């Protein structure tokens, strides 16, 4: 009897531990990690089956901009062929939310390091995801 009780107690603790582990907060990407200037270098396409192929479509980058500049506290400047527009942005988890004056767009942050930023744009019917790759530079 005591063995059963001990076993059940251990099981209970185990369940609690698993629950806690599963609840580890996903802090996501901090806006600070994005600050600075980024230059579009190319794209890949992800079909969702781990088949990430190299894919260069200028439209993918230019849908966002040749270069991006994230500025404190919440402004992103898009430069395309030397012409600059801007909007506000915020991050939520791994999402980059671009806030226009009337409509917002949400991109997926697929990776950000000190030198590279990968942004995911939903492709046709969400079956693909285009990933635009940017590298950090000093303007």
């Amino acid at each position: 009897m005591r063995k059963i009780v001990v076993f059940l107690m251990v099981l209970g603790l185990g369940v609690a531990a698993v629950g806690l582990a599963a609840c580890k907060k996903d802090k996501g990407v901090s806006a600070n990690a994005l600050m600075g200037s980024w230059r579009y270098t190319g794209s890949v396409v992800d079909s969702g089956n781990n088949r990430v192929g190299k894919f260069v479509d200028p439209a993918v980058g230019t849908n966002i901009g040749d270069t991006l500049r994230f500025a404190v506290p919440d402004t992103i400047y898009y430069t395309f062929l030397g012409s600059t527009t801007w909007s506000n942005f915020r991050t939520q988890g791994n999402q980059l939310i671009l806030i226009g004056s009337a409509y917002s767009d949400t991109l997926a942050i697929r990776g950000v390091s000190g030198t590279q930023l990968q942004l995911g744009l939903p492709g046709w019917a969400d079956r693909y995801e285009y990933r635009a790759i940017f590298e950090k530079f000093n303007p």
Partner: protein
Amino acid sequence: MKRILSFGLFALIVVALTFSTSSCKKTVTVIVKDTVRSAWQLLPLYNSNGMAALNSWNAGDTSLFIVGNFGITQVPVNRSAFNNFFTWPLPGSSYIAPVYVTPFYDGKVCSYMTPEGFYAYGVPQATQYSTISYNPVMTPGTYSRLSQNYVFGSQSSPAADYPVIRDRYALMPVETVGTSNAETRFDLIRWDSAQLLSPFTGPQTPVVKSIVVSAAVGLFTLSNYYCAAYYDKFFVSYGGQFFRVDTLGNVKAFGPTPVPGQRVWGIANMFTYSGMLFINSGGLIYFSSDQGENWSVWNDFTNSSASRVIFRNVGKDLYATMATLSSQLWKVVIDGRNLNFSELNTDGFASSLMTSITRCGKYVFITTPTGVYYRDSTYFNQLTKPVR
């Protein structure tokens, strides 16, 4: 003992389950839009003059001039409030006889056609001004072509049909030669610009050179007149034919279209970009890389929304506005032979045709027939939707 154990076990499982679910607090973020103040503000008091704002230009960073259909208004900029307006009537025009089409204005000279003829007006500075006027002498038995038929608020850009080159040259169609529509007399006039730009000078008579322009193909038709000045040359769409006229009066006739064999849709507007000159002919876009002497088809956007916009140069940048009563505004970038449109924030605009965009001081001003709007130029390029 058994009961205690069972209770303890039950309590433990409840605690474990509660802990594992309640600690997953979700982050909910609400995006709050600031609706207290619209992005574009109406320039107060301007409507009190009863004029439709048709054009504007800046004199340096401190004065905005708004040209209406019978007056010109100076707005001092760089003040905390816009409340010191000075309005002068446009000579030769009045409330009941406003100027035809949109006056031309380049910051120094404002020119326009009224029921009394052509006028050029030195920009009023310190309430002093000079004007010249010209009313051509008609030949009996001919048909007048001086006052053309236009759409109000000329849906073209530059939104003017009587532009002035180097403060002293203007061109206008005058009359048919005989009664045939095969030839038309244009008058190229020149006056003393130093005198026009000086305050309170006496009247002067312009020097006139009459030019007879022949239809390259067939006869001239009745269609909207368009004239713009680039590189010190006039580019004219008259009677369904396209011409280049220089300030010496030399005419190059291109025929119905800048490039032979294209659709004859007249010229909606012209603009420059990266040193090239463009013609928008209802979405069919021509370009010239030799200052308008030779033209090529650049691209055909006939069936897209690009066919319904007016392209506007603002400094080195290019913008587009709707040619209809809609207040959409785009920043345009030319990429190869494509047009990249980024729609900008127009929150605050009444739905109205935009007639001009002028940057002055720290503001950008946009005129519409129903009012003038302004916004801090820092925010001018704010996107309505970030991903194009």
